[in-house]
């Protein structure tokens, strides 16, 4: 899946492309968008993503590269698995869909796999997908498989392009298909993996709902749990296709994504609109890495860090596994002594105490803090007395 932006140079788009500099626009994948939705309070990430900045290169130049990567073994295995699916005519996808629709197993339906212009630009591909989807939805009897279609989704007031693995269209409705490499073992998969996949798939379902609403010329319904009754509308149950047990035999598992869809919709609506983020940005800020003729970035790290610091962040330790700037933002949080470095929950626990030193000072005040100590601080002081007493009793201090 890709997220990129329309080419018309409206003022915000021009400003976004200035932020990026002459570098090619980076596309996001569904995982990144799901991560964006998971931390909707982070303006830094929202802006960098909207501008299509290469966050991997940015983190590298800031001196704290992201630890992400994929093993060549995993990539090879993934490709093998996907080609195996195609080789048997996607039977593994169609069988469970047929069952759910109550169609006879032996009914031989020919599967149309239209050309979706994979080499074209995202905008063109999205147009093409929309047209094919409308056509397929109008044919109640046929089966159509959209192989890596391109979907458009509005994110914080700017269009993004997403690429699911596949969408199957039949009887006027479509089903999102995601191909995953984690196994379904003895009939169940690891809940953490399924959860992540469901969050990703929910983003596609949302994009398809928007597409169906656009096609019908109607606004997107307000209720996130409502099943759209429009031509080409997506099912709220998606299919995950995974290896079965320890084999490379594919198996499809239906996953209800209604909850994830509701969460994603709510989170995306909470994101500050990009134009507001741009308006709050000081003049002249850019994330241009100033690459020289050989492509090596020349922008001094300090200058770049200052530019990044101009956009407020919302760091939490989860960032380290979801965002390329995780190590950079963590270093900043540590430098500032923020309590968020210890975990999301800690912040709520400590109330208005925002830094480690503030919190420790409150803990040391003991009972004599007076009324200016708020409830969290008082509890902390009580905890500190208990801790000191217990450590002394245990002979540790």
């Amino acid at each position, binding site marked *: 899946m890709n997220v990129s932006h329309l080419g018309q140079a409206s003022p915000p788009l021009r400003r976004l492309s200035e932020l990026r500099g002459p570098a090619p626009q980076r596309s996001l994948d569904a995982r990144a968008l799901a991560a964006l939705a998971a931390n909707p309070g982070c303006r830094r990430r929202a802006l960098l993503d909207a501008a299509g900045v290469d966050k991997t290169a940015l983190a590298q130049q800031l001196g*704290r*590269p992201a*630890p992400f*990567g*994929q*093993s*060549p*073994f*995993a*990539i*090879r*295995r*993934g490709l093998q698995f996907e080609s195996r699916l195609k080789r048997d005519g996607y039977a593994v996808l169609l069988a469970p869909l047929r069952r759910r629709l109550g169609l006879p197993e032996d009914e031989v339906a020919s599967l149309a796999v239209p050309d979706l212009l994979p080499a074209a630009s995202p905008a063109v591909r999205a147009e093409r997908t929309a047209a094919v989807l409308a056509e397929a939805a109008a044919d109640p009897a046929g089966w159509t498989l959209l192989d890596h279609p391109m979907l458009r989704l509005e994110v914080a007031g700017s269009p993004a392009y997403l690429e699911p693995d596949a969408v199957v269209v039949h009887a006027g409705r479509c089903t999102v298909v995601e191909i995953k*490499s*984690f*196994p379904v*073992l*003895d*009939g169940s998969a690891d809940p953490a993996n399924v959860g992540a996949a469901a969050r990703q798939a929910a983003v596609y379902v949302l994009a398809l709902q928007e597409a169906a609403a656009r096609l019908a010329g109607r606004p997107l319904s307000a209720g996130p749990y409502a099943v759209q009754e429009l031509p080409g509308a997506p099912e709220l149950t998606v299919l995950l296709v995974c*290896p*079965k*047990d*320890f*084999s*490379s035999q594919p198996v499809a598992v239906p996953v209800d994504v209604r909850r994830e869809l509701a969460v994603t919709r709510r989170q995306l609506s909470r994101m500050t609109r990009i134009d507001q983020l741009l308006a709050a940005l000081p003049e002249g800020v850019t994330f241009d890495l100033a690459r020289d003729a050989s492509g090596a970035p020349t922008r001094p790290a300090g200058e770049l860090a200052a530019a990044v610091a101009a956009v407020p962040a919302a760091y939490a*330790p*989860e960032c*380290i*596994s979801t965002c390329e700037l995780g*190590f950079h933002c963590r*270093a900043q949080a*540590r430098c500032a*002594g923020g*309590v968020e*470095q*210890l*975990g999301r*929950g*800690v912040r709520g*626990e400590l109330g208005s105490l925002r830094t*480690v*030193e503030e*919190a*420790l000072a409150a*803990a040391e005040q003991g009972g004599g803090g007076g009324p200016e100590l708020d409830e969290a601080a008082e*509890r*902390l002081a*009580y*905890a*500190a*007395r*208990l*801790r000191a*007493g*217990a*450590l002394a*009793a*245990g*002979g*540790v201090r």
Partner: protein
Amino acid sequence: MSLLSTLARLEAVRAQRAQPLATVRHRHLSERPMVLVPLAAAGESGAPLAVLLGTDRESPRLHFVPQPLNRTQRSEFLAAVAREVVPYLASFGDEVELLEGSEKDPVSGEKVPVVRELCADAPQLIVPNAGGVSHLALLGRSTRFRRTVEDPDPGEYPSPTEVPLLGRWLTHLTDRAQVPGSSMLLAMTGLLSRHWATGQSNLEDQHLAARLAWHLPPAGFEPPGTGAAAAEWVESARDGDGLLLHPPAGPATDPKFDERVLAPAILRHDAAVAVRERAEAARDAAEVRRAAGLVEQAHAELARVLLSVTLPTWHDVWHGLDLLRALPAAGHLPDRWEGDRWSFTMHRDRVAAGEPPQPRRDDAVTAARKLAQREREQARLEIQEALDDPLAMAERRLAGEAFAGEVVEVVPEWSAGRSPKPRPLLVVRTDDRPHADPGREVHRAHAEPAQRAEVVSAAPGEVVVRLLSGMGRRKDPEPGSVPEPGTAVVFTLFELAPRQSAPLPEPADTPWTHGGPPVAVEDVPVGADEWE
């Protein structure tokens, strides 16, 4: 995370060093543990790549699959691992205690005396992290149904007999590891997290070397130090080739290592094997000899690189054990370890009796039993930890579930009736704020015999309780059974003996709707789902 552990984390940030979360060691540590550092092959669930293991810190042993996709090599690997692990486990089965008890005779219904065996000690496996436990569970699942040459229908790829046995043991141990407080299979990150707080988040603590960097300066980190900078160095410092200076603890390897080191080394090994096969086909003795040398060289090179990414973690696990061994053992450890010994003994007996491997999925009765057992053990663990460790008790006090203080006054009183019993009032001065309404039953910690009391009144700074038991049978309390003024006391709102949960029916008495008889013999399509 509780406020007390948050506080410890805050202190760790300031000190840039791990801070205690326990004053005693809450898990049993064996004198002869087996440490395993398993690595998985990327992209394929549960496919083993290598394991560094052993009971001797000075001489770990490496086993690996030269070509992770080759099922014969994988089988040989598993057999080699089984030949290390199974004898280690079995060595604990020999020395037993004989316990006399009684059992209902199934025919006459009368109680008859029986003597049961309980193994005097049990094995203990230590892995670096929770991922290591999951990996062993997958290995157990993928091997316990393997057909062997001894099967009536050994199939196309029979395994050595030790392999399914290893699978059954790994399944048993990983299952037991789910029981709170059990110690037969432990992850080092979990052990350290129970006993110390670092100045980073729980998520970052899952990286064994990074969390150890809050205890000891990591090898190679300059200038030597502990804390955030050391942890970050361990997580991310790379050499000129882009390889991590401190490899991750597995089971996943660093993708860069896979790409730059492992993949080429596997390729060279594959190529050498191909040369040898060609030479063998051509019956070219000289070429076969030369090729054998190439294979040997490639094999040694693979061993070298795999050792280089497991050995640092091996040392980390042992350093973790050093830290833990320095803590005094908690009082209830022998009690909980006995549970592990029973678990070990019973599985030993099931294997010896020739019972089939554990099913793929538990039936309803077994699943309910396991769940009930885990809940019971969780409750027991919490009580025992609170009694063993003032810091664990402090957690309960902070939660309002216990209070500690000093007896400032004792008012002797007696119950009404013909034979009055002592019912003294204790005035306890405490800073704690227990959720103790009048009438609430409380329990005196560390009282021998157990002592109950009832809250009479609770005001800030002072709680008055009336002792109800544990003072003997006479009119006057047994000497020493009533704390005198000046004595430090702790009362808990929770019971100090875990409540027995409602007993579950025996499998035979369970209705078939809940998985009772008729006993469905697990269909074991052995070998049907081995790796490809």
